[in-house]
Protein backbone atom coordinates (compact mmCIF):
# COMPACT_ATOMS: atom_id res chain seq x y z
CA UNK A 1 0.00 0.00 0.00
CA UNK A 2 2.84 2.42 0.79
CA UNK A 3 5.72 3.29 -1.55
CA UNK A 4 9.30 2.68 -0.47
CA UNK A 5 9.77 6.42 -0.07
CA UNK A 6 6.80 6.66 2.29
CA UNK A 7 8.17 3.77 4.33
CA UNK A 8 11.64 5.40 4.42
CA UNK A 9 10.22 8.73 5.64
CA UNK A 10 8.11 6.89 8.18
CA UNK A 11 10.97 4.93 9.72
CA UNK A 12 13.44 7.83 9.50
CA UNK A 13 11.35 10.98 9.72
CA UNK A 14 13.22 14.23 9.17
CA UNK A 15 12.90 17.36 11.30
CA UNK A 16 11.03 15.84 14.23
CA UNK A 17 10.83 17.93 17.37
CA UNK A 18 9.96 21.38 18.60
CA UNK A 19 11.51 24.84 18.33
CA UNK A 20 11.74 26.90 21.52
CA UNK A 21 10.49 30.42 20.76
CA UNK A 22 9.37 29.66 17.21
CA UNK A 23 8.53 32.44 14.77
CA UNK A 24 5.45 30.55 13.67
CA UNK A 25 3.41 27.70 15.16
CA UNK A 26 0.54 25.72 13.66
CA UNK A 27 -1.56 22.86 15.00
CA UNK A 28 -4.24 21.07 13.01
CA UNK A 29 -6.20 17.87 13.09
CA UNK A 30 -8.03 15.93 15.74
CA UNK A 31 -6.65 13.17 17.96
CA UNK A 32 -10.13 11.72 18.05
CA UNK A 33 -9.79 11.10 14.34
CA UNK A 34 -6.36 9.65 14.91
CA UNK A 35 -4.28 12.48 13.53
CA UNK A 36 -2.91 15.67 14.97
CA UNK A 37 0.02 17.68 13.64
CA UNK A 38 2.14 20.52 15.03
CA UNK A 39 4.56 22.55 12.95
CA UNK A 40 7.16 25.03 14.25
CA UNK A 41 9.06 27.42 11.95
CA UNK A 42 12.02 29.75 12.40
CA UNK A 43 12.16 32.55 9.83
CA UNK A 44 15.24 34.45 8.71
CA UNK A 45 15.58 36.87 5.79
CA UNK A 46 12.18 35.90 4.42
CA UNK A 47 13.20 32.23 4.31
CA UNK A 48 12.28 29.24 6.43
CA UNK A 49 15.51 28.82 8.37
CA UNK A 50 14.29 25.86 10.38
CA UNK A 51 11.18 23.72 10.58
CA UNK A 52 10.18 21.04 13.05
CA UNK A 53 7.08 18.94 13.41
CA UNK A 54 5.40 16.54 15.80
CA UNK A 55 2.54 14.27 14.91
CA UNK A 56 0.12 11.78 16.41
CA UNK A 57 -0.86 9.85 13.33
CA UNK A 58 -0.36 6.96 10.98
CA UNK A 59 2.43 6.07 8.58
CA UNK A 60 1.20 8.42 5.87
CA UNK A 61 0.85 11.32 8.33
CA UNK A 62 4.39 10.96 9.64
CA UNK A 63 5.86 10.47 6.17
CA UNK A 64 3.90 13.45 4.80
CA UNK A 65 5.10 15.73 7.59
CA UNK A 66 8.67 14.59 7.11
CA UNK A 67 8.56 15.13 3.35
CA UNK A 68 6.78 18.48 3.66
CA UNK A 69 9.36 19.72 6.14
CA UNK A 70 12.17 18.80 3.76
CA UNK A 71 10.43 20.52 0.87
CA UNK A 72 10.11 23.86 2.64
CA UNK A 73 13.28 24.02 4.69
CA UNK A 74 15.44 26.87 3.39
CA UNK A 75 12.75 28.02 0.97
CA UNK A 76 11.42 31.58 0.66
CA UNK A 77 8.19 32.11 2.58
CA UNK A 78 6.03 32.57 -0.46
CA UNK A 79 7.31 29.36 -2.04
CA UNK A 80 6.54 27.48 1.18
CA UNK A 81 3.11 29.05 1.15
CA UNK A 82 2.37 27.42 -2.19
CA UNK A 83 2.97 23.89 -0.92
CA UNK A 84 0.00 21.61 -1.58
CA UNK A 85 -0.96 18.17 -0.38
CA UNK A 86 -0.71 16.85 -3.95
CA UNK A 87 2.90 18.04 -4.18
CA UNK A 88 3.72 16.26 -0.95
CA UNK A 89 2.02 13.07 -2.14
CA UNK A 90 3.79 13.22 -5.51
CA UNK A 91 7.14 13.77 -3.79
CA UNK A 92 6.47 10.63 -1.76
CA UNK A 93 5.80 8.65 -4.92
CA UNK A 94 2.08 8.67 -4.31
CA UNK A 95 -0.28 7.94 -1.44
CA UNK A 96 -3.32 5.67 -1.37
CA UNK A 97 -6.54 7.64 -1.94
CA UNK A 98 -7.69 6.93 1.61
CA UNK A 99 -4.49 8.49 2.96
CA UNK A 100 -4.53 11.75 1.00
CA UNK A 101 -6.01 13.52 3.99
CA UNK A 102 -2.71 12.87 5.80
CA UNK A 103 -0.68 14.83 3.23
CA UNK A 104 -3.38 17.46 3.44
CA UNK A 105 -2.78 17.62 7.17
CA UNK A 106 0.95 18.27 6.67
CA UNK A 107 0.40 21.06 4.16
CA UNK A 108 -2.35 22.61 6.28
CA UNK A 109 -0.27 22.53 9.44
CA UNK A 110 2.58 24.25 7.65
CA UNK A 111 0.27 26.97 6.31
CA UNK A 112 -1.11 27.43 9.81
CA UNK A 113 2.43 28.00 11.09
CA UNK A 114 3.11 30.53 8.31
CA UNK A 115 -0.20 32.28 8.98
CA UNK A 116 0.75 32.50 12.63
CA UNK A 117 4.03 34.16 11.60
CA UNK A 118 2.27 36.66 9.29
CA UNK A 119 -0.08 37.68 12.09
CA UNK A 120 2.94 38.92 14.05
CA UNK A 121 4.78 40.17 10.96
CA UNK A 122 2.16 41.45 8.51
CA UNK A 123 4.87 43.25 6.51
CA UNK A 124 6.39 39.88 5.60
CA UNK A 125 3.22 38.58 3.97
CA UNK A 126 3.80 38.17 0.19
CA UNK A 127 1.56 40.29 -2.05
CA UNK A 128 -0.06 37.33 -3.76
CA UNK A 129 -0.73 35.17 -0.68
CA UNK A 130 -1.75 31.62 -1.45
CA UNK A 131 -4.37 30.23 0.88
Amino acid at each position, binding site marked *: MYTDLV*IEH*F*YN*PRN*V*GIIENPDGYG*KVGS*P*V*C*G*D*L*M*EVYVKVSNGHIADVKF*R*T*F*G*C*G*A*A*IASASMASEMVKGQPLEVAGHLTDEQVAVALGGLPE*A*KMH*CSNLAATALHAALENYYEEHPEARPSEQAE
Partner: protein
Amino acid sequence: MSSDSRSVYMDHAATTSVDPRVLEAMMPYFVQGYGNPSSLYRLGRAAGKAMDAARVKVAEVLGARPTEIVFTSCGTESDNLALRGTALASRSRGNHIVTTSVEHHAVGNTCAQLSREFGFEVTYLPVDSAGTVNPDDVGRAITGRTVLVSVMYANNEVGTIEPIAEIGKIARERGVPFHTDAVQAAGSVSLRVNDLNVDMLSLSGHKFYAPKGVGVLYVREGTLLQPVQTGGGQERLMRAGTENVPYIVGLAAALELAHAGLSAEVERLCSLRDKLIGGILGSIPDVHLTGHPTLRLPNSASFAFWGAEGESLVLHLDLAGVAASSGSACASREEGPSHVLEAMGLDATLAQGSLRLTLGRENTEQDVEYVLSVLPGIVRKLRAMSPIYVPDALRQVTGGSVRGTGAAE
Protein backbone atom coordinates in the same frame (compact mmCIF):
# COMPACT_ATOMS: atom_id res chain seq x y z
CA MET B 1 16.83 -1.35 20.12
CA SER B 2 16.95 -5.07 19.25
CA SER B 3 20.07 -7.13 18.82
CA ASP B 4 18.71 -9.66 16.33
CA SER B 5 15.67 -9.30 14.14
CA ARG B 6 13.39 -12.34 14.19
CA SER B 7 10.14 -13.15 12.47
CA VAL B 8 7.31 -13.36 14.98
CA TYR B 9 3.70 -13.79 13.85
CA MET B 10 1.23 -12.60 16.46
CA ASP B 11 -1.89 -11.96 14.38
CA HIS B 12 -3.58 -15.34 14.59
CA ALA B 13 -6.96 -13.70 15.02
CA ALA B 14 -6.55 -12.42 11.46
CA THR B 15 -5.52 -15.75 10.01
CA THR B 16 -3.38 -18.83 10.62
CA SER B 17 -1.09 -20.98 8.52
CA VAL B 18 -2.36 -24.34 7.28
CA ASP B 19 -1.14 -27.10 9.59
CA PRO B 20 0.99 -29.58 7.58
CA ARG B 21 -1.18 -32.44 8.85
CA VAL B 22 -4.24 -30.64 7.50
CA LEU B 23 -2.58 -30.12 4.12
CA GLU B 24 -1.69 -33.80 4.02
CA ALA B 25 -5.31 -34.76 4.69
CA MET B 26 -6.44 -32.51 1.82
CA MET B 27 -3.97 -33.59 -0.86
CA PRO B 28 -5.68 -36.81 -2.08
CA TYR B 29 -8.71 -34.80 -3.23
CA PHE B 30 -7.12 -32.50 -5.81
CA VAL B 31 -5.48 -34.65 -8.47
CA GLN B 32 -6.74 -38.15 -7.73
CA GLY B 33 -9.90 -38.02 -5.64
CA TYR B 34 -11.41 -35.03 -7.46
CA GLY B 35 -14.91 -36.39 -7.97
CA ASN B 36 -18.07 -34.36 -7.53
CA PRO B 37 -19.85 -35.83 -4.49
CA SER B 38 -23.18 -35.74 -6.35
CA SER B 39 -21.94 -38.02 -9.14
CA LEU B 40 -23.17 -41.61 -9.35
CA TYR B 41 -19.91 -43.32 -10.27
CA ARG B 42 -17.23 -44.49 -7.87
CA LEU B 43 -15.03 -41.41 -8.15
CA GLY B 44 -17.98 -39.27 -7.05
CA ARG B 45 -19.07 -41.71 -4.36
CA ALA B 46 -15.56 -41.71 -2.89
CA ALA B 47 -15.57 -37.93 -2.70
CA GLY B 48 -18.99 -38.06 -1.08
CA LYS B 49 -17.70 -40.54 1.47
CA ALA B 50 -14.77 -38.29 2.36
CA MET B 51 -17.15 -35.38 2.78
CA ASP B 52 -19.49 -37.42 4.98
CA ALA B 53 -16.60 -38.48 7.18
CA ALA B 54 -15.60 -34.83 7.52
CA ARG B 55 -19.15 -33.93 8.47
CA VAL B 56 -19.18 -36.60 11.18
CA LYS B 57 -15.88 -35.27 12.59
CA VAL B 58 -17.17 -31.72 12.80
CA ALA B 59 -20.43 -32.89 14.36
CA GLU B 60 -18.52 -34.84 17.00
CA VAL B 61 -16.50 -31.80 18.08
CA LEU B 62 -19.72 -29.79 18.38
CA GLY B 63 -21.74 -32.57 20.00
CA ALA B 64 -24.21 -32.25 17.15
CA ARG B 65 -25.71 -34.50 14.47
CA PRO B 66 -23.99 -34.67 11.07
CA THR B 67 -27.25 -33.55 9.48
CA GLU B 68 -26.93 -30.31 11.41
CA ILE B 69 -23.63 -29.32 9.78
CA VAL B 70 -23.67 -27.02 6.74
CA PHE B 71 -20.35 -26.42 4.97
CA THR B 72 -19.83 -22.90 3.62
CA SER B 73 -16.99 -20.93 2.06
CA CYS B 74 -16.11 -18.95 5.19
CA GLY B 75 -17.28 -17.51 8.50
CA THR B 76 -18.81 -14.50 6.78
CA GLU B 77 -20.95 -16.72 4.58
CA SER B 78 -22.03 -18.72 7.65
CA ASP B 79 -23.08 -15.50 9.38
CA ASN B 80 -24.94 -14.32 6.29
CA LEU B 81 -26.81 -17.61 6.08
CA ALA B 82 -27.68 -17.60 9.77
CA LEU B 83 -28.94 -14.02 9.74
CA ARG B 84 -30.51 -13.49 6.35
CA GLY B 85 -31.66 -17.09 6.07
CA THR B 86 -33.48 -16.89 9.41
CA ALA B 87 -34.84 -13.38 8.98
CA LEU B 88 -36.32 -13.92 5.54
CA ALA B 89 -37.75 -17.31 6.49
CA SER B 90 -39.40 -15.80 9.57
CA ARG B 91 -41.14 -12.77 8.13
CA SER B 92 -44.59 -14.06 8.96
CA ARG B 93 -43.53 -14.42 12.58
CA GLY B 94 -41.93 -11.07 13.10
CA ASN B 95 -39.41 -8.47 12.00
CA HIS B 96 -37.15 -7.89 15.01
CA ILE B 97 -33.55 -9.02 15.53
CA VAL B 98 -31.51 -8.69 18.71
CA THR B 99 -27.75 -8.51 18.39
CA THR B 100 -24.87 -6.57 19.99
CA SER B 101 -22.89 -3.42 19.29
CA VAL B 102 -19.59 -5.34 19.16
CA GLU B 103 -20.30 -7.91 16.44
CA HIS B 104 -18.05 -8.55 13.48
CA HIS B 105 -19.13 -6.72 10.32
CA ALA B 106 -20.35 -10.01 8.83
CA VAL B 107 -23.15 -9.86 11.41
CA GLY B 108 -23.41 -6.09 11.81
CA ASN B 109 -23.57 -5.19 8.12
CA THR B 110 -25.92 -8.06 7.36
CA CYS B 111 -28.28 -6.74 10.05
CA ALA B 112 -27.91 -3.26 8.59
CA GLN B 113 -28.92 -4.54 5.16
CA LEU B 114 -31.88 -6.44 6.62
CA SER B 115 -32.96 -3.24 8.28
CA ARG B 116 -32.40 -0.98 5.26
CA GLU B 117 -33.81 -3.21 2.54
CA PHE B 118 -36.14 -5.68 4.23
CA GLY B 119 -37.70 -3.54 6.93
CA PHE B 120 -36.29 -5.40 9.93
CA GLU B 121 -35.85 -3.64 13.25
CA VAL B 122 -32.52 -4.37 14.87
CA THR B 123 -31.64 -3.86 18.51
CA TYR B 124 -27.90 -3.51 19.06
CA LEU B 125 -27.32 -4.32 22.72
CA PRO B 126 -24.74 -2.28 24.62
CA VAL B 127 -21.71 -3.76 26.36
CA ASP B 128 -19.89 -2.76 29.51
CA SER B 129 -16.35 -1.39 29.60
CA ALA B 130 -14.96 -4.93 29.33
CA GLY B 131 -17.06 -5.60 26.22
CA THR B 132 -19.45 -8.00 27.96
CA VAL B 133 -23.15 -8.28 27.11
CA ASN B 134 -25.61 -8.56 30.00
CA PRO B 135 -27.90 -11.58 29.49
CA ASP B 136 -30.73 -9.69 31.24
CA ASP B 137 -30.48 -7.03 28.53
CA VAL B 138 -31.13 -9.77 25.98
CA GLY B 139 -34.24 -10.84 27.87
CA ARG B 140 -35.49 -7.28 28.06
CA ALA B 141 -34.91 -6.67 24.36
CA ILE B 142 -36.84 -9.72 23.12
CA THR B 143 -40.41 -8.96 22.01
CA GLY B 144 -43.23 -10.95 20.49
CA ARG B 145 -41.83 -10.05 17.08
CA THR B 146 -38.24 -11.15 17.66
CA VAL B 147 -37.13 -13.79 15.17
CA LEU B 148 -33.46 -14.13 16.05
CA VAL B 149 -30.87 -13.35 18.69
CA SER B 150 -27.25 -13.25 17.54
CA VAL B 151 -24.35 -12.74 19.97
CA MET B 152 -20.73 -13.51 19.16
CA TYR B 153 -18.97 -16.09 21.32
CA ALA B 154 -15.65 -14.23 21.57
CA ASN B 155 -14.76 -10.77 20.31
CA ASN B 156 -12.19 -10.54 17.56
CA GLU B 157 -10.75 -7.18 18.63
CA VAL B 158 -10.46 -7.52 22.40
CA GLY B 159 -10.94 -11.24 23.09
CA THR B 160 -13.82 -10.89 25.54
CA ILE B 161 -15.84 -14.10 25.91
CA GLU B 162 -19.60 -13.53 26.06
CA PRO B 163 -21.99 -15.45 28.39
CA ILE B 164 -23.37 -17.55 25.56
CA ALA B 165 -24.92 -20.39 27.61
CA GLU B 166 -26.85 -17.91 29.79
CA ILE B 167 -28.07 -15.94 26.81
CA GLY B 168 -29.02 -19.16 25.04
CA LYS B 169 -31.08 -20.25 28.00
CA ILE B 170 -33.01 -16.97 27.95
CA ALA B 171 -33.58 -17.13 24.20
CA ARG B 172 -34.85 -20.71 24.50
CA GLU B 173 -37.25 -19.79 27.31
CA ARG B 174 -38.65 -17.08 25.05
CA GLY B 175 -38.83 -19.37 22.02
CA VAL B 176 -36.40 -17.31 19.92
CA PRO B 177 -33.65 -18.95 17.83
CA PHE B 178 -30.15 -18.10 19.02
CA HIS B 179 -27.09 -17.82 16.75
CA THR B 180 -23.52 -17.29 17.83
CA ASP B 181 -20.62 -16.19 15.64
CA ALA B 182 -17.95 -18.50 17.07
CA VAL B 183 -15.32 -17.64 14.46
CA GLN B 184 -12.75 -16.51 17.03
CA ALA B 185 -13.65 -19.18 19.58
CA ALA B 186 -12.63 -22.40 17.82
CA GLY B 187 -9.46 -23.91 19.21
CA SER B 188 -9.85 -21.92 22.41
CA VAL B 189 -13.08 -22.85 24.12
CA SER B 190 -15.66 -25.62 24.03
CA LEU B 191 -17.97 -25.64 21.02
CA ARG B 192 -20.47 -28.14 22.50
CA VAL B 193 -23.72 -26.74 21.18
CA ASN B 194 -25.91 -28.28 23.86
CA ASP B 195 -23.81 -26.76 26.63
CA LEU B 196 -23.96 -23.42 24.82
CA ASN B 197 -27.72 -23.57 24.26
CA VAL B 198 -27.32 -22.36 20.69
CA ASP B 199 -29.42 -23.09 17.63
CA MET B 200 -26.83 -21.92 15.11
CA LEU B 201 -23.06 -21.48 15.30
CA SER B 202 -20.58 -20.10 12.73
CA LEU B 203 -17.01 -21.29 12.24
CA SER B 204 -14.21 -20.19 9.91
CA GLY B 205 -11.48 -22.61 8.88
CA HIS B 206 -8.59 -20.22 8.52
CA LYS B 207 -8.70 -19.28 12.21
CA PHE B 208 -7.78 -22.80 13.28
CA TYR B 209 -5.09 -23.91 10.83
CA ALA B 210 -7.36 -24.94 7.96
CA PRO B 211 -7.14 -23.00 4.68
CA LYS B 212 -9.00 -19.80 3.86
CA GLY B 213 -12.16 -20.46 1.86
CA VAL B 214 -14.09 -22.90 4.04
CA GLY B 215 -16.42 -22.55 7.00
CA VAL B 216 -19.28 -24.17 8.87
CA LEU B 217 -22.74 -23.20 10.01
CA TYR B 218 -24.23 -25.51 12.63
CA VAL B 219 -28.04 -25.49 12.40
CA ARG B 220 -30.03 -27.28 15.11
CA GLU B 221 -32.67 -29.58 13.71
CA GLY B 222 -36.02 -27.83 13.64
CA THR B 223 -34.56 -24.33 13.21
CA LEU B 224 -36.43 -22.30 10.63
CA LEU B 225 -33.93 -21.32 7.94
CA GLN B 226 -33.97 -20.67 4.21
CA PRO B 227 -30.91 -20.77 1.96
CA VAL B 228 -29.08 -17.65 0.87
CA GLN B 229 -27.26 -19.38 -1.97
CA THR B 230 -29.69 -21.35 -4.13
CA GLY B 231 -29.05 -23.79 -6.93
CA GLY B 232 -28.47 -27.54 -7.05
CA GLY B 233 -29.73 -28.31 -3.56
CA GLN B 234 -26.50 -29.37 -1.85
CA GLU B 235 -26.13 -29.30 1.95
CA ARG B 236 -29.71 -30.49 2.37
CA LEU B 237 -31.01 -27.54 0.34
CA MET B 238 -29.31 -25.08 2.69
CA ARG B 239 -26.29 -24.15 0.57
CA ALA B 240 -26.11 -24.86 -3.12
CA GLY B 241 -22.85 -25.33 -4.95
CA THR B 242 -20.52 -28.23 -5.63
CA GLU B 243 -18.92 -29.05 -2.33
CA ASN B 244 -15.26 -28.12 -1.87
CA VAL B 245 -14.22 -31.60 -0.80
CA PRO B 246 -10.50 -31.09 -0.13
CA TYR B 247 -11.17 -27.95 1.92
CA ILE B 248 -14.02 -29.59 3.81
CA VAL B 249 -11.76 -32.53 4.62
CA GLY B 250 -9.08 -30.04 5.70
CA LEU B 251 -11.43 -28.10 7.94
CA ALA B 252 -12.61 -31.25 9.68
CA ALA B 253 -9.05 -32.44 10.24
CA ALA B 254 -8.06 -29.04 11.60
CA LEU B 255 -11.04 -28.82 13.94
CA GLU B 256 -10.42 -32.30 15.25
CA LEU B 257 -6.74 -31.48 15.86
CA ALA B 258 -7.55 -28.21 17.57
CA HIS B 259 -10.03 -29.70 19.97
CA ALA B 260 -8.20 -32.96 20.69
CA GLY B 261 -5.40 -31.24 22.56
CA LEU B 262 -7.53 -28.28 23.66
CA SER B 263 -6.86 -28.08 27.39
CA ALA B 264 -3.08 -28.45 27.06
CA GLU B 265 -2.85 -25.86 24.30
CA VAL B 266 -5.16 -23.48 26.16
CA GLU B 267 -2.95 -23.74 29.24
CA ARG B 268 0.16 -23.09 27.15
CA LEU B 269 -1.41 -20.10 25.39
CA CYS B 270 -2.75 -18.60 28.61
CA SER B 271 0.70 -18.75 30.13
CA LEU B 272 2.29 -17.01 27.14
CA ARG B 273 -0.53 -14.48 26.94
CA ASP B 274 -0.30 -13.59 30.62
CA LYS B 275 3.46 -13.20 30.35
CA LEU B 276 2.97 -10.87 27.39
CA ILE B 277 0.25 -8.84 29.10
CA GLY B 278 2.16 -8.63 32.39
CA GLY B 279 5.33 -7.65 30.59
CA ILE B 280 3.68 -4.86 28.60
CA LEU B 281 1.70 -3.45 31.51
CA GLY B 282 4.79 -3.63 33.68
CA SER B 283 7.27 -1.99 31.35
CA ILE B 284 5.27 0.62 29.46
CA PRO B 285 3.43 3.48 31.21
CA ASP B 286 0.03 4.81 30.15
CA VAL B 287 -1.22 1.63 28.49
CA HIS B 288 -4.67 0.11 28.96
CA LEU B 289 -5.53 -3.58 28.58
CA THR B 290 -8.71 -3.71 26.50
CA GLY B 291 -11.33 -6.41 26.93
CA HIS B 292 -12.19 -8.49 29.96
CA PRO B 293 -9.19 -9.12 32.25
CA THR B 294 -10.00 -12.82 32.81
CA LEU B 295 -12.92 -13.91 30.62
CA ARG B 296 -10.89 -13.47 27.46
CA LEU B 297 -9.54 -15.78 24.77
CA PRO B 298 -6.41 -17.68 25.83
CA ASN B 299 -4.41 -16.18 22.98
CA SER B 300 -5.59 -12.57 22.95
CA ALA B 301 -3.58 -9.62 24.28
CA SER B 302 -5.12 -6.31 23.22
CA PHE B 303 -4.10 -2.86 24.35
CA ALA B 304 -4.62 0.84 23.89
CA PHE B 305 -1.51 3.02 24.17
CA TRP B 306 -1.97 6.65 25.05
CA GLY B 307 -0.23 8.97 22.58
CA ALA B 308 1.04 6.34 20.11
CA GLU B 309 -1.07 5.73 17.04
CA GLY B 310 -2.05 2.19 16.06
CA GLU B 311 -0.93 1.98 12.43
CA SER B 312 2.44 3.44 13.36
CA LEU B 313 2.81 0.84 16.11
CA VAL B 314 2.05 -1.92 13.62
CA LEU B 315 4.53 -0.57 11.05
CA HIS B 316 7.33 -0.25 13.59
CA LEU B 317 6.64 -3.74 14.88
CA ASP B 318 6.79 -4.95 11.28
CA LEU B 319 10.23 -3.41 10.91
CA ALA B 320 11.25 -5.42 13.96
CA GLY B 321 9.79 -8.56 12.38
CA VAL B 322 6.61 -8.74 14.44
CA ALA B 323 3.18 -9.10 12.81
CA ALA B 324 0.35 -7.54 14.82
CA SER B 325 -2.76 -5.51 14.07
CA SER B 326 -4.62 -2.42 15.19
CA GLY B 327 -8.21 -1.25 15.16
CA SER B 328 -7.23 2.41 14.71
CA ALA B 329 -9.03 4.41 12.06
CA CYS B 330 -5.89 4.66 9.95
CA ALA B 331 -4.96 1.01 10.26
CA SER B 332 -8.30 -0.38 9.15
CA ARG B 333 -10.04 -0.05 5.83
CA GLU B 334 -12.69 2.20 7.31
CA GLU B 335 -12.33 5.84 8.07
CA GLY B 336 -13.67 5.66 11.62
CA PRO B 337 -12.44 4.32 14.94
CA SER B 338 -13.18 0.81 16.16
CA HIS B 339 -16.89 0.34 16.84
CA VAL B 340 -15.97 -2.24 19.47
CA LEU B 341 -13.77 0.11 21.49
CA GLU B 342 -16.37 2.82 21.05
CA ALA B 343 -19.11 0.54 22.38
CA MET B 344 -16.89 -0.22 25.37
CA GLY B 345 -16.74 3.47 26.14
CA LEU B 346 -13.02 3.82 25.53
CA ASP B 347 -11.81 7.41 25.07
CA ALA B 348 -11.70 8.08 21.33
CA THR B 349 -8.10 9.29 21.28
CA LEU B 350 -6.94 6.37 23.38
CA ALA B 351 -8.72 4.03 20.97
CA GLN B 352 -6.50 5.30 18.15
CA GLY B 353 -3.56 3.72 19.94
CA SER B 354 -4.97 0.19 19.80
CA LEU B 355 -2.75 -2.84 19.29
CA ARG B 356 -3.80 -6.47 19.11
CA LEU B 357 -1.40 -9.37 19.61
CA THR B 358 -2.94 -12.83 19.18
CA LEU B 359 -0.80 -15.88 19.85
CA GLY B 360 -0.84 -19.23 18.12
CA ARG B 361 0.51 -22.71 17.88
CA GLU B 362 4.02 -21.82 16.76
CA ASN B 363 4.62 -18.95 19.22
CA THR B 364 7.15 -19.62 21.95
CA GLU B 365 8.32 -17.97 25.13
CA GLN B 366 11.22 -16.52 23.11
CA ASP B 367 8.70 -14.85 20.82
CA VAL B 368 7.03 -13.20 23.80
CA GLU B 369 10.37 -12.09 25.21
CA TYR B 370 11.34 -10.64 21.85
CA VAL B 371 8.16 -8.59 21.58
CA LEU B 372 8.68 -7.36 25.13
CA SER B 373 12.19 -6.30 24.15
CA VAL B 374 11.17 -4.21 21.14
CA LEU B 375 7.78 -2.74 21.98
CA PRO B 376 8.74 -0.31 24.77
CA GLY B 377 11.28 1.42 22.53
CA ILE B 378 8.76 1.72 19.71
CA VAL B 379 6.17 3.28 22.01
CA ARG B 380 8.78 5.66 23.42
CA LYS B 381 9.85 6.76 19.94
CA LEU B 382 6.28 7.44 18.81
CA ARG B 383 5.40 9.27 22.00
CA ALA B 384 8.51 11.46 21.66
CA MET B 385 7.28 12.69 18.30
CA SER B 386 3.66 13.02 19.39
CA PRO B 387 2.20 16.40 20.34
CA ILE B 388 -0.34 14.85 22.65
CA TYR B 389 1.62 12.55 24.89
CA VAL B 390 1.58 13.71 28.48
CA PRO B 391 2.45 11.11 31.11
CA ASP B 392 -0.43 10.24 33.42
CA ALA B 393 -2.97 11.80 31.03
CA LEU B 394 -4.34 8.28 30.82
CA ARG B 395 -5.38 8.27 34.45
CA GLN B 396 -7.67 11.22 33.89
CA VAL B 397 -9.10 9.73 30.75
CA THR B 398 -9.92 6.22 31.98
CA GLY B 399 -10.69 7.09 35.58
CA GLY B 400 -8.07 4.66 36.80
CA SER B 401 -9.20 1.47 35.05
CA VAL B 402 -6.71 -1.33 34.30
CA ARG B 403 -3.51 0.31 33.10
CA GLY B 404 0.22 -0.17 33.12
CA THR B 405 2.19 1.66 35.74
CA GLY B 406 5.49 0.97 34.00
CA ALA B 407 8.71 2.78 34.68
CA ALA B 408 8.62 6.57 34.79
CA GLU B 409 9.74 8.01 31.46
